[in-house]
């Protein structure tokens, strides 16, 4: 019972004001909502629908495979089905479901009113819903890709897969990844900067840690596959030979890039799920998690180690044995942190002083432990190179990966549904139906997938639409199919439970399971009535009075001092209050932007270029309108948040959340660029002769020098333009001119680079060398395009009196992007113009 931080009783009408500000739009305006609970539910719901849809495809496949030599689906349709099943499960279900839980649960766990960029997450969700739906629908019109979920060239090159099918994968999935990155930016800044005062990093709930690592991994891994999809799409559309061996390309480049993303992807899915388990287990045991520090380390180590594993998917490609051994070693190293988490969960259960109640969430957690353990063991088996050679591309792998993914992710997800429904719903889900659902899924899963280990070892290859009876795997397949139907029944029971018992809204018990973390505080649309001061890992256990105090408005920020949506931003390590962020409310612009971005990509897929460009214009226009009103300026502050703390409502520079988002963006762009440098160097090692021939086409030194000077000039002018900004309340012409001049210089720089190569006679279609050179320019050019648009935006804002010396966040962000671009461009110039001289290879 500590002293109230804010004076009580709170004034009449204060809560109504909060309710009004945070109200969810009703009726046809519902799509404009940005509240993290609404958006998070939409996100999670969509992911679940994709799970069911891809599951139905799986059932059809299993039905086809139930008996030898059946003809239910054709071979080609089967190929499309496993491709769409795998792709949907990985890209449209697993990652989005975890990201959705981040959006839904993080602000509640951090007692923040919302994540720092509400419209950005809403944008990401809508883009994903529209893009994902269209992608999935292609299966019904024979337009679905058929190259497997990892889409290896040369099979996926135009020659072997004509038609738009593969392009739907490339553009559709590439686009969804961009949306995932947007979500990751939100999560990183959210976890680091919107924690409640006092929640220093050592008190951040494990799920927060898991999401932080998850988002960090997305930042590094997804750019690699985005680059890969760019390469393949460019090769398919314009014939730049990145993967065509006779022109110096290499199909293995795809495998490197894809698995540099693809292996971490498995952990990207698993880590948040493990984080969820680390939240549920302590509650079930009524004991703090054993080995908190160890678990944090395990999450971090898994995140990093998982990037040293990618080649273990390529053990059969003829790479030298020692290289394989490096990756095999890392594959074993990564098992240690997983083991740490396992033992910690078991130890926490063991530490419990009361009888563990086997309620539905606990059951699903235990199911996960069992299944994931088996998946992990077969994982260690396939990490051994000699065994891998035997099992590669058989049903043993299908069994292994489903044990890992369903055990590691689907079971925790169902535990999550049962455990966290009370914080968004009016009542709990049914325990009785929950148990039915659990046992059906658990038994069904093992019945379905365990026999696949055996049929695999007996020689049944994966990705076959049927098999001869003589192979002797018929009985195992029949059992597998029966198991698949049991899983389906279990999922159906869960859906029935949802339909009967899930009602969004307030009511019921706030903390039915007796958890210790903040998401079980009393909540309403504004999240918690006031934002608590946190001084331990399980505040609800350590201060039983906290829920009352929070609900009475005794803690920080019980009101809405700026009259709009806002939350407290705290420092990244110590969580000291720094300022109040003013956040946007509902709106159409981000929805329109999302829909038209999706439309643009989809039209490009089917090569309808002009309407696609029109959609792009609409999307950009919508984004600009949306961000126009975001920067609210310092006028409403400073404000008092209680506890004697007064905070500004507007900051720029290294403490602002916008600056942090830009830093995250630097990392994303940097990862993309590093993936490019890797690809460039990789193709050189494969085809040094093409590089040697390329030396002839190197432009005169004047071209790169000029280009570099122009870009540096752009950065300098941009830096100076800040000085030219008018004082608050005024406008001028000098600042807009300077900003636009900077953008023009940058444009001139990248044009010089491209033109230099062109006049020297280099063509991107002639060899992989040329293709790489022009690709490097494209990577910079797209940043310059963004800078040009942002500069126009800044110029307009100065003219409108909305950008001045104090209120200059837009210009700050533009400058930061330009500084990054300059650095990347200079490195690229040195690589492209210097490397062939040094390492062109002796004739």
């Amino acid at each position, binding site marked *: 019972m500590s002293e109230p931080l804010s004076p009580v009783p709170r004034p009449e009408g204060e809560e109504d004001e909060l309710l009004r500000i945070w109200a969810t739009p009703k009726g046809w305006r519902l799509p404009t909502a940005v509240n993290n609970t609404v958006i998070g539910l939409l996100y999670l719901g969509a992911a679940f629908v994709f799970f069911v849809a891809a599951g139905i495809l799986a059932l059809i496949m299993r039905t086809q495979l139930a008996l030898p030599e059946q003809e239910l689906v054709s071979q080609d349709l089967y190929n499309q089905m496993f491709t769409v099943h795998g792709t949907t499960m990985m890209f449209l279900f697993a990652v989005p479901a975890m990201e959705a839980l981040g959006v839904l649960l993080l602000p509640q766990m951090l007692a923040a009113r919302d994540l720092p960029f509400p419209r950005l997450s809403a944008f990401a969700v809508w883009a994903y819903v529209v893009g994902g739906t269209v992608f999935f629908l292609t299966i019904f019109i024979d337009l679905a890709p058929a190259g497997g979920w990892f889409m290896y060239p040369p099979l996926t090159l135009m020659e072997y897969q004509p038609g738009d099918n593969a392009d739907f994968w490339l553009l559709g999935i590439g686009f969804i990844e961009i949306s995932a990155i947007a979500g990751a930016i939100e999560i990183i800044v959210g976890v680091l900067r919107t924690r409640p005062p006092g929640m*220093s*990093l*050592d*008190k951040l709930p494990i799920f927060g840690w898991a999401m932080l690592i998850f988002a960090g991994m997305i930042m590094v891994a997804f750019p690699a596959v985005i680059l890969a999809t760019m390469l393949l799409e460019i090769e398919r559309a314009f014939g730049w030979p990145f993967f065509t061996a006779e022109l110096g390309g290499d199909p293995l480049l795809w495998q490197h890039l894809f698995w540099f993303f693809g292996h971490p992807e498995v952990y990207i899915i698993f880590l948040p799920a493990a984080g969820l388990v680390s939240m549920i287990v302590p509650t079930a045991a009524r004991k703090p998690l054993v080995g908190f*520090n*160890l678990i*944090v*380390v395990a999450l*971090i*180590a898994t995140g*990093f*180690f998982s*990037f*040293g594993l990618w080649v273990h998917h390529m053990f059969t490609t*003829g*790479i*030298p*044995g*020692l*290289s*394989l*051994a*490096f990756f*095999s*070693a*890392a594959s*074993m*190293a990564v098992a*240690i*942190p997983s083991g740490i988490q396992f033992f910690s969960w078991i130890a926490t259960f063991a530490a419990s002083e009361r009888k563990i109640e086997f309620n539905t969430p606990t059951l699903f957690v235990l199911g996960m432990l069992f299944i994931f353990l088996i998946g992990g063991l077969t994982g260690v088996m396939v990490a051994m*190179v*000699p065994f891998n050679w035997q099992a590669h591309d058989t049903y043993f792998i299908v069994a292994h990966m489903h044990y890992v993914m369903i055990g590691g992710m689907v079971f925790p997800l169902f535990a999550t549904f049962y455990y966290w429904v009370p914080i968004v719903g009016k009542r709990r889900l049914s325990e009785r139906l929950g148990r039915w659902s659990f046992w059906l899924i658990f038994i069904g899963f093992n019945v379905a997938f365990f026999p696949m280990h055996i049929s695999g070892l007996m020689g049944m290859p994966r990705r076959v639409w049927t098999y001869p009876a003589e192979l002797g795997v018929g009985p195992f397949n029949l059992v597998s199919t029966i198991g698949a139907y049991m899983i389906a029944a279990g999922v159906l029971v869960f859906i029935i439970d949802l339909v009967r018992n899930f009602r969004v809204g307030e009511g019921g018990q706030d903390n039915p399971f007796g958890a210790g973390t903040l998401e079980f505080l009393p909540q309403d649309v504004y999240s918690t009535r006031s934002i608590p001061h946190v001084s331990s890992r399980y505040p609800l256990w350590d201060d039983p009075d906290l829920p009352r105090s929070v609900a009475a408005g005794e803690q920080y920020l019980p009101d809405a001092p700026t009259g709009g949506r806002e939350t407290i931003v705290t*420092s*990244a*390590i*110590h969580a*000291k*209050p*720094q*300022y109040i962020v003013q956040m946007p409310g509902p709106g159409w612009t981000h929805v329109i932007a999302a829909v038209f971005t999706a439309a643009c990509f989809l039209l490009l897929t089917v090569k309808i270029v002009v309407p696609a460009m029109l959609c792009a214009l609409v999307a950009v226009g919508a984004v600009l309108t949306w961000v126009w009103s975001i920067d609210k300026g310092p006028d409403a502050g*400073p404000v008092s948040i209680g506890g004697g703390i*007064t*905070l*500004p409502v507007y*900051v720029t520079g*290294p*403490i602002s959340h916008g600056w942090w988002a830009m830093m995250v963006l630097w990392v994303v762009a940097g990862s993309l660029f590093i993936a490019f440098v890797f690809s460039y160097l990789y193709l050189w*090692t*494969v085809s040094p002769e093409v590089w040697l021939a390329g030396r002839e086409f190197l432009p005169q030194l004047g071209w790169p020098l000029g280009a570099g000077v122009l870009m540096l000039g752009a950065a300098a002018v941009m830096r100076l333009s800040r000085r030219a900004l008018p004082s608050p309340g005024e406008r001028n012409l000098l600042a807009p001119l300077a900003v636009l001049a900077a953008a023009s210089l940058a444009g001139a720089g990248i044009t010089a680079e491209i033109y230099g190569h062109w006049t020297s006679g280099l063509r991107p279609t002639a060899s992989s060398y040329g293709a790489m050179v022009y690709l490097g320019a494209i990577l910079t050019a797209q940043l310059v395009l963004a800078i040009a648009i942002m500069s126009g935006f800044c110029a307009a804002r100065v003219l409108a009196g909305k950008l001045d010396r104090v209120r200059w966040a837009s210009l700050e962000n533009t400058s930061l992007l330009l500084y990054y671009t300059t650095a990347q461009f200079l490195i690229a110039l040195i690589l492209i113009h210097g490397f062939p001289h040094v390492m062109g290879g002796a004739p």
Partner: protein
Amino acid sequence: MSEPARDTRFLRRTLTSLSGILIWAAHFGLVYGVQHVACREGAGWTGFVKPVIYLATVLAAALMGLVAAKARSWLAPDDPGAPDVSIFLRAVTHILLVLSLFGVLATTASAVLLPTCGALR
């Protein structure tokens, strides 16, 4: 109104805490890169691979030792009265160092045991 509290030394604290695993990553990238390139280039290059790997390993281990010795001062709390975060970050740093050292040694062990470029049969 005073200036809002800044988070002092975020970058230093983060890099120190993560140094073990960052060193592992650098070691891994270097070792794999050198071996890959040397084996592609062939004759004249391959002899360097193993010495480079061993050297990198010694260097990595030495760096890790340095961090271990310095962690306490690099992670000293802002406010001596509130040591929680520093204790936590120190624990993270040290455990990560141990795990990463294991990773580095596992990589090196491969180099001890296998020929530089030969494919497995």
